[in-house]
C-alpha cells in the first residue's frame, strides 16, 4: 500500500519535471510579464483597507496649495494650504498661519522639493516656493502642515526653485523676474545695468523649524527657469536654465526668443559658501550678496539651445540634460567635461563678468527625437533611462542618456508640463510609475464649461509605456514629488506640550482672563462642547466689551485620531481648526457689539450640531 503511493507520487513528479524541461520557458523573465498580466483597472485599483504605494505631492500653482495624491489610485487625499488662505482648515486665520502669510491672501506654488539625505528623499520635510509673492515655505511631513514661510528680498518670483542639495544643506531660489536690488524704482532703459536676477541660498534649521537666507547671488538680469542640484560626483554643483539673455524689457515672447543660444548657469555652492565665509560679499537690503563680476569663481555659463526649460541631473550625477523648449532638442552635457574645461580655463570669453565654457567642450550629445516638439522636463527611472515631456507634441518620450537612442513614446492628453517619476530626481529612482502633469484636459472629463481642470495621467513605465489612469486636478500642478509611502511617518495626535502657556489639557482649567481691554480665553474643545470658562454659569459663552481685543486659545482635548474641531464666530469672518491634541490661537478685536453664535465647523460627532456657544459683545456706554 505504502509502496504504491510512493511510486504514484514519484511518477507524477517525474512527469511535471519532464514537462517543465520540454515546455517551460527558462529565458530571463521581463519584469513586465507579471505586471502586464494585470488589466489597467487592476493596476490602479486600491481596495478599501489597502493603501497606495506612493504619495504624490503636486504643486497647486496659483491656488497657492499643495495637492496630495495616492499612486497608483490617483485619489486626491489632502489639500494642504501653503501660500493662500483656506477656510476649510482655518489656514490664515489662526495666529501662526496668519503671521506666516504676512497679509498675503494668495500665492503661486511652484516646484515642491523634499528634504534629502545622501541624495535620497528622507520623507521629513517638503519645501516650496511662491512665484507670486516671492516666498519660500517648509512643510513638516509629520503633520502635513506649514511650519515656516519667509519672504525673500531682492528677488521677484522664485520660479526656478526650489531645489535641494544632496543633504539639504541649501535650497536654492533663483528668480524668474529680474528686478532692481531692493525692488527700487529704476527705469527699464537701465535694465542691463540696474536690474538683477538674484538667486537666494536658503538654509533650514530643523530644530527651530525655521528657514533662513544664508546669502544671495546677484546674477545677470535674465530669467531663470528651472534648476537641479548635482548628485554624487557633482554634489557640490548645481545647474539652472536661463532665458531672455537678450535682456529684453518688453514683448518677451518675441524679444526674448531672438538669440539662438541662452545659457545654463553652472555653479559650485561650496565655493560660494567659502566666499561668504571669507567676507567676499556686499550687504544689500540686509542680505549678504555676492556679485559675480566682482567675486570671481564658482559660477560659469554653458551655452545651450535657446530658451531651455528644464535642466535635470542624471541619477549618477554625471550628466545634466537641458530641454530645449523652443529648439526641439535635448542636450546632454557632461559634468566631468565641464570640470575639466573649468580646470583648464577653457573659456570662450565672458558674459556680465561670468566666464563662458565652450559648448563643444561640455556637450556630450544632442538628442532630437523625430517630430518631438517642446521638450520641457526630464525624469529618470531605476535604470537611468530618461523620460522627457514634450509640451507641443503632447507626449512623453523615453530615451537613453548614454546613447541618445529613443526607446519608447506615449501620447498624453494634453500638453504635459512637468512629469514626476517615483523618486525620479533622486540618486536612485524607483521606476514603475511616472505621472504626466498635463496643462490641458479639454475633452478628457465631463464638461464643466469653457474652462477645464488640469489633468494628471499615470503611466506604467515598468515595460512598454502605457497610460493606465487619468485624474482631473485643480489649477495647477507644475512639478511634483513622488515618494514611497513608508518613508513618511505622520503622527496621529499632537503630543501634549505642558510648557505651552496657552494649552489647557484639563477641562476644569478652562478660564477667561481679563487684562485691561485684552480678554484671554484659555478654552477647550471636546466632543461635543466648548468650555471657555469651567467655573462660569454658561461655560461655553465668551462675554466681552465692544472694542476689547480677544485672544481665544483653544485646545482640542480629544486625543483621538481625526477628531478635529473647528471654531467659528458668526459674522466675525473667522474660523480656525484645532486638530486632535493641538492648541491654536485666534485673535480679533470685538469691534461689533451684539450677539454672535460660536460653532464647531468641523463635523466631530453625533452632537456636533449642538457644539455651539455665544460671543456676547456689550456695546460701549
Amino acid at each position, binding site marked *: 500500500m505504502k509502496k504504491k503511493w510512493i511510486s504514484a507520487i514519484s511518477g507524477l513528479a517525474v512527469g511535471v519535471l519532464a514537462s517543465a524541461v520540454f515546455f517551460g520557458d527558462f529565458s530571463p523573465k521581463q519584469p513586465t510579464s507579471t505586471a502586464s498580466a494585470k488589466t489597467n483597472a487592476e493596476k490602479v485599483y486600491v481596495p478599501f483597507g489597502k493603501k497606495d504605494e506612493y504619495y504624490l505631492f503636486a504643486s497647486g500653482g496659483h491656488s497657492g496649495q499643495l495637492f496630495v495624491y495616492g499612486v497608483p489610485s490617483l485619489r486626491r487625499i489632502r489639500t494642504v494650504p501653503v501660500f493662500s488662505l483656506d477656510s476649510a482648515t482655518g489656514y490664515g486665520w489662526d495666529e501662526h498661519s496668519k503671521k506666516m502669510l504676512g497679509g498675503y491672501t494668495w500665492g503661486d506654488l511652484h516646484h515642491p522639493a523634499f528634504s534629502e539625505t545622501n541624495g535620497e528623499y528622507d520623507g521629513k520635510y517638503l519645501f516650496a516656493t511662491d512665484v507670486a509673492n516671492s516666498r519660500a515655505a517648509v512643510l513638516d511631513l509629520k503633520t502635513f502642515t506649514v511650519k515656516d514661510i519667509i519672504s525673500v528680498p531682492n528677488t521677484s518670483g522664485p520660479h526656478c526653485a526650489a531645489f535641494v542639495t544632496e543633504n539639504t544643506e541649501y535650497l536654492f531660489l533663483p528668480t524668474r523676474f529680474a528686478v532692481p536690488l531692493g525692488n527700487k524704482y529704476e527705469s527699464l532703459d537701465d535694465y542691463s545695468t540696474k536690474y538683477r536676477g538674484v538667486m537666494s541660498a536658503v538654509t533650514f534649521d530643523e530644530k527651530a523649524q525655521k528657514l533662513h537666507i544664508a546669502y544671495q547671488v546677484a546674477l545677470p538680469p535674465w530669467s531663470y527657469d528651472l534648476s537641479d542640484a548635482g548628485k554624487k560626483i557633482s554634489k557640490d554643483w548645481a545647474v539652472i536654465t536661463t532665458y531672455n539673455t537678450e535682456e529684453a524689457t518688453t514683448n518677451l515672447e518675441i524679444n526674448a526668443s531672438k538669440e539662438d543660444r541662452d545659457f545654463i548657469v553652472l555653479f559650485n555652492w561650496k565655493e560660494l559658501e567659502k566666499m561668504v565665509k571669507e567676507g567676499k560679499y556686499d550687504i544689500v537690503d540686509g542680505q549678504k550678496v555676492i556679485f559675480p563680476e566682482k567675486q570671481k569663481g564658482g559660477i560659469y555659463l554653458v551655452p545651450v539651445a535657446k530658451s531651455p526649460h528644464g535642466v535635470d541631473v542624471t541619477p549618477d550625477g554625471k550628466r545634466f540634460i537641458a530641454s530645449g523648449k523652443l529648439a526641439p532638442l535635448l542636450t546632454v552635457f557632461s559634468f566631468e567635461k565641464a570640470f575639466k574645461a573649468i580646470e583648464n580655463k577653457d573659456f570662450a570669453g565672458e558674459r556680465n563678468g561670468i566666464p563662458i565654457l565652450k559648448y563643444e567642450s561640455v556637450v556630450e550629445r544632442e538628442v532630437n527625437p523625430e517630430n518631438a516638439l517642446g521638450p520641457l522636463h526630464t525624469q529618470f527611472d531605476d535604470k537611468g533611462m530618461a523620460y522627457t515631456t514634450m509640451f507641443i507634441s503632447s507626449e512623453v518620450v523615453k530615451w537613453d542618456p548614454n546613447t541618445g537612442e529613443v526607446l519608447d513614446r506615449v501620447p498624453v492628453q494634453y500638453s504635459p508640463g512637468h512629469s514626476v517619476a517615483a523618486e525620479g530626481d533622486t540618486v536612485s529612482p524607483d521606476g514603475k510609475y511616472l505621472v504626466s502633469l498635463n496643462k490641458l484636459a479639454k475633452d478628457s472629463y465631463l464638461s464643466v464649461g469653457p474652462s477645464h481642470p488640469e489633468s494628471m495621467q499615470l503611466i506604467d513605465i515598468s515595460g512598454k509605456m502605457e497610460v493606465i489612469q487619468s485624474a482631473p486636478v485643480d489649477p495647477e500642478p507644475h512639478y511634483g514629488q513622488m515618494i514611497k509611502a513608508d518613508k513618511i511617518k505622520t503622527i496621529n495626535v499632537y503630543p501634549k506640550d505642558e510648557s505651552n502657556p496657552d494649552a489647557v489639557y484639563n477641562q476644569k482649567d478652562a478660564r477667561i482672563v481679563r487684562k485691561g481691554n485684552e480678554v484671554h480665553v484659555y478654552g477647550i474643545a471636546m466632543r461635543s462642547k466648548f468650555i471657555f470658562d469651567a467655573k462660569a454659569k454658561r461655560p461655553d459663552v465668551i462675554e466681552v466689551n465692544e472694542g476689547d481685543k480677544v485672544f481665544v486659545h483653544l485646545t482640542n*482635548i480629544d*486625543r483621538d485620531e481625526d477628531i478635529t474641531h473647528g471654531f467659528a464666530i458668526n459674522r466675525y469672518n473667522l474660523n480656525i481648526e484645532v486638530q486632535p491634541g493641538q492648541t491654536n490661537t485666534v485673535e480679533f478685536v470685538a469691534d461689533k457689539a451684539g450677539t454672535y453664535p460660536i460653532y464647531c465647523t468641523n463635523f466631530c460627532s*453625533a452632537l456636533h450640531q449642538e457644539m455651539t456657544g455665544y460671543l456676547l459683545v456689550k456695546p460701549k456706554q
Partner: protein
Amino acid sequence: MKKAKLSVSTAIIVSCSAFLTGASLFFPWWGMRFVAPQYPEGLDIIVYPNKLKGNIDIINGLNHYIGMKPFSEESFPELSYLPYIIGALAVFLLVVAWLRDKRLLVALVVVFAIGGLLGLYDLHRWLVDFGTNLSDDAPIKIKPFVPPVLGENRIANFVTNSYFSTGAYMIGAAFFLLILPLWKERKR
C-alpha cells in the same frame, strides 16, 4: 501534634509561586476592548494592579454621551494599595517556603482564595457602579447595564470584550502551584 513540615520540592514550588505573584505586579491583569464601526482598531482599558493604561481619555470622552462618570486612576483607591497586598502575599509565600510550614501554607492558600474572590467581586462592583449610575443629564439615554467581568457585551455602537490578561494568568498559575503540593502532600 507535631508540626507538619513541607518537603524541599514543595518549598521550591511555593517559591516559584511567590515569584509569579510578585512578577504579576508588572503585567496587566484585566482589560476591556471596545470595538465600533468608527474604531475598527479598538479602544482599550488595560488594568494593572497599580495603574490604568489604554485609551482612557477617549473612552471617557465617549462615555459622557451616555452619562457615565469619567474614570481615572484616582477613581480606584485599590490601585494605590493593591500592589502592597500582592507584594506582601509574595513575601509571605517566600517565608512559608523558607519555614516549610504546612499550616501556614494552608492559611495562605485560604487568604489567597478569599483575596481572589474579593478581587473579582470588587471588579464586578465597579462595573455595576459605572454601568448603572448613569447621569440623568446624558444626551443619549440608555438602559443601565453591567458589563461582564469576562466576555462580550454590546453598548450602543460598541461591542466590548472583557478579558483576563497576563498578570491574572500568572496569579492563577501561582495559586495552582500552591494547591498542587497541598494535594500531593495531603496524606502526610
